[in-house]
């Protein structure tokens, strides 16, 4: 059937389009030439050595990692109680609250970044780790909330009530009954939160400095002026981090997207 063959061709062409730039970056990072070449001419790991020798890259990787971990922890600490309150209690303006907590998903990051720059300047926090962190917590909290909320189903409420009736204190019920039920949603939400913070440029760029910078912002500032294989090496590392994160997601909660719901 022609339609089916055509579909197959389009699908594989699109898959190739999705993978091509990443292959090009990893390939170009291995080139022995001093300029970017793809396919690479000669093979060398020198550019990775150069990257590791440059302490500013190592520092930026450190900042990005610390920021993403702290933002994820913050998002979990905020989203978890909010999800419990929304799923378990009826209170006024619940829908408004949910909209407030989810709206960073649709807000242009450039606008939020600009707002936080101005605001943190007024607070004396301008271009500090704290300024970066609060912004990142705001943008990644919706990911955790979105994946935890659907797992707090009304049916599971009965289990929580049983636990309370049997004399468990609220915190024990949370730890022993609620947490095991939402572990999957919490894990995938936290992984999405981590990676969203790790790759962010448009929010971070406002509150970074030459000394305090994340790896995507450093790359952005660098790429605008010079392009060399070191950049490709740094980019390749971030692609590797993405790959590891996906494997982690698959191993912990499984990749259920695009497959039929159980």
């Amino acid at each position: 059937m022609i339609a089916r063959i055509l579909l197959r061709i389009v699908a594989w062409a699109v898959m190739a389009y999705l993978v091509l730039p990443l292959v090009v970056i990893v390939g170009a990072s291995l080139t022995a030439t001093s300029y970017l070449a793809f396919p690479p001419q000669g093979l060398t790991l020198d550019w990775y050595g150069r990257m590791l020798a440059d302490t500013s890259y190592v520092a930026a990787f450190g900042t990005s990692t610390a920021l993403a971990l702290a933002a994820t922890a913050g998002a979990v600490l905020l989203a978890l109680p909010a999800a419990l309150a929304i799923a378990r209690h009826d209170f006024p303006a619940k829908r408004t609250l949910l909209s407030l907590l989810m709206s960073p998903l649709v807000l242009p990051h450039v606008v939020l970044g600009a707002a936080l720059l101005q605001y943190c300047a007024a607070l004396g926090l301008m271009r500090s780790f704290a300024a970066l962190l609060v912004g990142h917590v705001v943008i990644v909290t919706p990911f955790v909330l979105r994946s935890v909320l659907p797992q707090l189903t009304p049916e599971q409420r009965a289990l929580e009530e049983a636990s309370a009736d049997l004399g468990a204190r609220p915190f024990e019920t949370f730890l022993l009954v609620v947490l095991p039920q939402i572990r999957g949603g919490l894990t995938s939400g936290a992984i999405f939160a981590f990676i969203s913070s790790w790759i962010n440029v448009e929010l971070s760029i406002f509150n970074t400095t030459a000394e305090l910078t994340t790896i995507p912002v450093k790359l952005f500032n660098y790429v605008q002026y010079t392009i060399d294989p070191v950049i490709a090496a740094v980019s390749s590392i971030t692609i590797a981090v993405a790959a590891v994160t996906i494997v982690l997601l698959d191993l912990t909660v499984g990749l259920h997207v695009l497959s039929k719901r159980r």
Partner: protein
Amino acid sequence: MTAALTGDPATVPAAAPPTALRRALPLLAAPVAFFVAFFAVPMVVVLSSSLMAGGAPSLANYARVLLDQYHWDVLAVTFRIAALTTLAVTLLGYPLAYYLVRVVSSNALRRGCVILLLLPLFTSNIVRSFGWMILLGRNGLVNDTLVGIGLLERPIRFLGTETGIVIGLVYILLPFIVLAVGNALATVDPTLEEASADLGSSPFTTFWTVTFPLCLPGLIAGVIMVFTLAASAYVTPALLSGGKITVFPMLIFQQYSTVFDVHYGGALSITLLVFTLVLVALAGRIGNGGGNRS
């Protein structure tokens, strides 16, 4: 979410909301305080700055934005790029989503494709745009290939053109639409399609009258998301424009990073925001009942 929203005081026992609120309050205190302090208040500060000029309340900043033809030109470029991107993303992403959900029968293959779909999504858009800077250069792979197979006589310029920006944005946003459409497709009950086929419909008729309408909410949610992200993108246009094309988010960035005019910059921010929110509200209106974005 439960429909039992207690907004109407007449239907609720007078004592109920305060009790419920009191029990929810310990859970809500931290998230609400944080979001008010670092999200709501900063946005209010931007709004109020945009409404101040020369130390007094004024609409002068908005007049400066909206009465200047240049801003309308930039808005037109921004939304033209966003619209073209959305169209291309839909035309490319829909077949892929359909293929992955409906045609691929091997779970291992589908899983492999999902991993390849997530890989760019989990990579910074700076890295992904950088890949296209290499590919689209005058002597990049794309030009070399096109010249090599005789489609072009000499290399053409992609960087610094709207086409180049669209190619980069399509790449960045494609996974979103594939996931949105694919997840909608995965929830369509195949027996409905079988029934349509049993009743004599051609595969095309079945697709057009059964499958397509059933996953329309997923498509609409994906389309609106892609459009808003394309219209508010800064990094990809900044890298692929080569300084030759300006989109609206660049104007905002300039005002805050170099000029530091929070009044004029605030008006620009609110202008972009209003356009975005109107579109999101429209999406909510159309896609209502279609459920959550995922």
